[in-house]
């Protein structure tokens, strides 16, 4: 009987240790997945590509003025597509605010959505978005083929789309600004450019 008790104790210790190991492995898998996932804003297919001319719009803003999109302006514009019932959008609003303040010298941040005006006025008030122009237009979202939110489009001073993509985090939002500075419109472009240079490096290595 004492052998039975002993073996039971040993087995329980083993089971608990194994569970701990499995738990650690599952966490590691999650972490690795996160690290592999692209950190830049993912551009979805469709809509005006980076480097092409942005469609022109002149739309009334909820704060009273009119906002012109596309065409030559003296400042760049970040169009941020959001919706009141998208949790990630709300999470990004403070980040968007600090970004707008930091890049104030050259960048206008404009919010865009569609739906009933009353709902958006309430949302704008509750989230204290008075500092931003706020556009309501279904056509704007269609023109840029916005399928997932929050989505951001960076339009340069000359009316050319500089960068765009689905943004879920501060890093992805900032990657749009970096993309404009580097000249790569999308993360895919950047990766493709890197892939093109990589085989040459390989060849050089082979010949030696």
């Amino acid at each position, binding site marked *: 009987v004492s052998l039975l008790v002993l073996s039971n104790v040993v087995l*329980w210790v083993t*089971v*608990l240790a194994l*569970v*701990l190991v*499995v*738990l650690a*492995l*599952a*966490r590691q*898998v*999650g972490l690795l*997945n*996160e690290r592999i*996932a*692209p950190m830049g804003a*993912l551009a979805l297919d469709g809509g005006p590509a980076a480097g092409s001319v942005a469609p022109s719009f002149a739309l009334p803003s909820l704060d009273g003025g009119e906002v012109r999109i596309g065409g030559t302006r003296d400042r760049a514009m970040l169009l941020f597509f959001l919706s009141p*019932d*998208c*949790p*990630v959008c*709300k*999470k990004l609003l403070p980040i968007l605010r600090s970004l707008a303040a930091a890049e104030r010298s050259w960048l206008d941040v404009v919010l865009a959505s569609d739906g009933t005006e009353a709902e958006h006025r309430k949302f704008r008030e509750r989230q204290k978005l008075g500092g931003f122009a706020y556009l309501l237009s279904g056509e704007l979202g269609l023109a840029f083929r916005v399928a*997932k939110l929050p989505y951001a489009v960076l339009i340069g001073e000359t009316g050319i789309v500089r960068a765009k993509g689905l943004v879920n985090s501060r890093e992805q939002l900032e990657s749009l600004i970096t993309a404009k500075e580097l000249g790569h419109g999308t993360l895919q472009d950047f990766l493709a450019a890197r892939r093109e240079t990589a085989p040459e490096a390989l060849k050089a290595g082979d010949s030696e």
Partner: protein
Amino acid sequence: MSGILDPVLPWIAAAALALILARGAALKLLDLPRFSGAVAAYRIVPAALVAPAAGAVVAGEAAAASLLLVPDLRRLGATLAALVLAVVSAGVWINLRRGRFELDCGCGGKGQRISAGLLARNAGLGALALLAAIGPVARPLGTADLLVIAAASLAWAGLYFAGDALLASWRTRAAS
């Protein structure tokens, strides 16, 4: 109730379920704004009722977790746990039927999207609640019983957390 089962087995189920529910409630409490956002995004309750509904889910989870550990109230706790699970699963099912596969499930932590796997997971938890609701046979529990209950419930809850983490990362990878 019939005395087929030794009281140890329902106790293991109850303790494991209590651990799982307590963790869920704690994660949601830590980021309550995000959880209410997720509840709003389910588009089932009207906007005015989002905050009370989110609070009710968290409170239900926490209450079920504590009731499950009280000997005389274990069955009540199991019923409450099953009720919370049923409500939440109904929300997931309705939105899966609507085709909104991108929805954040609001399960707490890093989050995962709603999926059929999530429903299967909740069904498993429901089975655990059922097991916990089985009437106890009158038998005094000794120290050895308590040790077995502690070890086995930790093992079950740990396996559940590992499975849940895998489910979440599998879903994000499939989506990207």
